[in-house]
């Protein structure tokens, strides 16, 4: 697995809500080698503070050597990142981590909640590109409210995969949790579920999958310093009693490898 440190040019900045942004970054080497579920570590400034890079899922790649990240301002680092200017250069390290294992021979259900939608577009696109037919597949997206979702839908819709949405306030799609719509779709034996979102959502998705005997791959988070297995900082308790390192063993796991509290 080869990784690159590239000075990426900011090609496009989209602001969806007060706090939700999408950046298009020109970093050809990373774009060419990334697979769905992998992430990048971005240096938000040139100075010594904030010191560490910030991890972001690869939202999608383009043949023009671009990648996108979709992120929310939650603290100092993302605040600075939200202020980048077009054509500015920022240092991007990637692609990092182990991504999703595609299942090209059976139905897949892709479940994204909140910012967890970020890696799911790349996954859905690759799934669509490589698979003979997506007729049995589903994309289920949840968010707090309509304006956190609507700008993302076009990119999913053009794949023609069946798409269902849920919002906490009912402003778009199902009024409630994405796990609720999941229970309304049929999950045939042999299908694979992919989930990324808040911990309780992923725990809920996993619970449903387990009860149906369906494998579930989740993409999880952790605090990270290096993103490449060097610092051992990103540990997460594993089912086997030890720790797993999200940056190299994940961020995508078979949900059964991890511990869930629901």
């Amino acid at each position: 697995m080869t990784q690159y440190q590239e000075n990426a040019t900011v090609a496009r900045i989209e602001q969806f809500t007060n706090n939700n942004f999408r950046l298009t970054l020109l970093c050809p080497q990373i774009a060419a080698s990334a697979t769905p579920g992998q992430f990048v570590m971005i240096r938000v400034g040139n100075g010594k503070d904030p010191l560490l890079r910030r991890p972001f899922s690869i939202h999608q790649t383009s043949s023009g050597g671009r990648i996108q990240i979709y992120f929310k301002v939650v603290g100092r680092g993302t605040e600075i990142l939200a202020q980048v200017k077009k054509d500015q250069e920022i240092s991007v390290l990637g692609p990092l981590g182990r991504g999703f294992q595609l299942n090209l021979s059976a139905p897949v259900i892709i479940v994204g909640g909140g910012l967890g939608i970020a890696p799911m577009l790349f996954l859905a696109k690759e799934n669509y590109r490589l698979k003979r037919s997506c007729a049995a597949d589903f994309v289920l997206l949840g968010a707090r409210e309509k304006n956190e979702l609507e700008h993302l839908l076009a990119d999913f819709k053009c794949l023609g995969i069946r798409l269902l949405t849920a919002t906490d306030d009912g402003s778009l799609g199902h009024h409630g949790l994405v796990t609720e719509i999941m229970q309304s779709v049929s999950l045939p034996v042999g299908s694979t579920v992919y989930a990324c979102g808040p911990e309780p959502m992923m725990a809920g998705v996993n619970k449903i999958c387990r009860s149906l005997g369906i494998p579930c791959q989740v993409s999880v988070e952790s605090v990270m310093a290096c993103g490449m297995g060097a610092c051992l900082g990103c540990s997460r308790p594993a089912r086997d009693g030890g720790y797993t390192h999200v940056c190299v063993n994940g961020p995508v796991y078979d949900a059964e490898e991890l511990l869930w509290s629901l």
Partner: protein
Amino acid sequence: MEFVIPRDENLPDLRVNIGSLELANPVMTASGTFGYAREFEGLMNLHRLGAVIVKGISLYPRAGNPPPRIVETACGMLNAIGLQNVGVDRFITEKMPYLQGLNIPVIVNILGDSLAEYEEIAARLAGVPGVAGIEVNISCPNVKKGGVAFGTDPAMAAAVTASVKKKAEVPVMVKLSPNVSDITVIARAVEEAGADAISLINTLIGMAIHLPTRRPALANIIGGLSGPAIKPVALRMVYQVARVVSIPVVGIGGIESAEDALEFMLAGATAVQIGTANFVNPRASEDVLEGIGAYARAEKLDSIRSIIGGLRLDKHVPDMRNL
């Protein structure tokens, strides 16, 4: 141990010596911040490193601390990894072959819970092909047993040094804790006990709190502070220690650039280690190396050795600024 030191005749002479170990250049990677080197394979030219120092190795494997293990602070970070490692035996079988293939000096950072453990690790490393040096960590703040106690008491520090020296067949560098009242006392103690070199500093003990949850930011509550924030403390301690010992001193702490590294050398360091900077810029050590080379060229230095301890103390030029 012998290494083929690549020496381009057009390049300035960057060689330095750590005891009997000659390094092609003074830039090493600090323990715990560079994994087992392989992680950085595609991101920099590992063959150019003066030496690689691997993550701290203990006698038996350790699982490390529960998460969160790291948190960012102002110009720095705290870590409480808890010395997660595969243990010395698996290190030798699983990690050394790759490291040996790099054809650069590999220095193994070791940590024990007792004198006997330190000695035993050194014994197991004896004769292992590719091991060019041992760095004795007497200073990790994140392990309850041993660790800190060894590093803050001169007698214990000396005893650990002597134990390792008994079995080691390669130069032994002792890595000091900065969390002490007088670093020179510890430095002299380990020098007398036979240390071939001293490296410093390990992390300062610190803590961070997550206000929204009113909880410590680290599960371990306290952790080790590293990064640019600690550079002034590190530089001061290197300066103090270099004046009282006659063995080589290796500077560590917040080094990000060639300028930083050169400042440590002026203060008395024979070589430097790049730590936290590897996380920010995976090719930091190579950048530092290139910067040192450029400096040596620009300043027309015959050898980089000529700047070691070269701080000018004669007469202070008042800061008249730049008008």
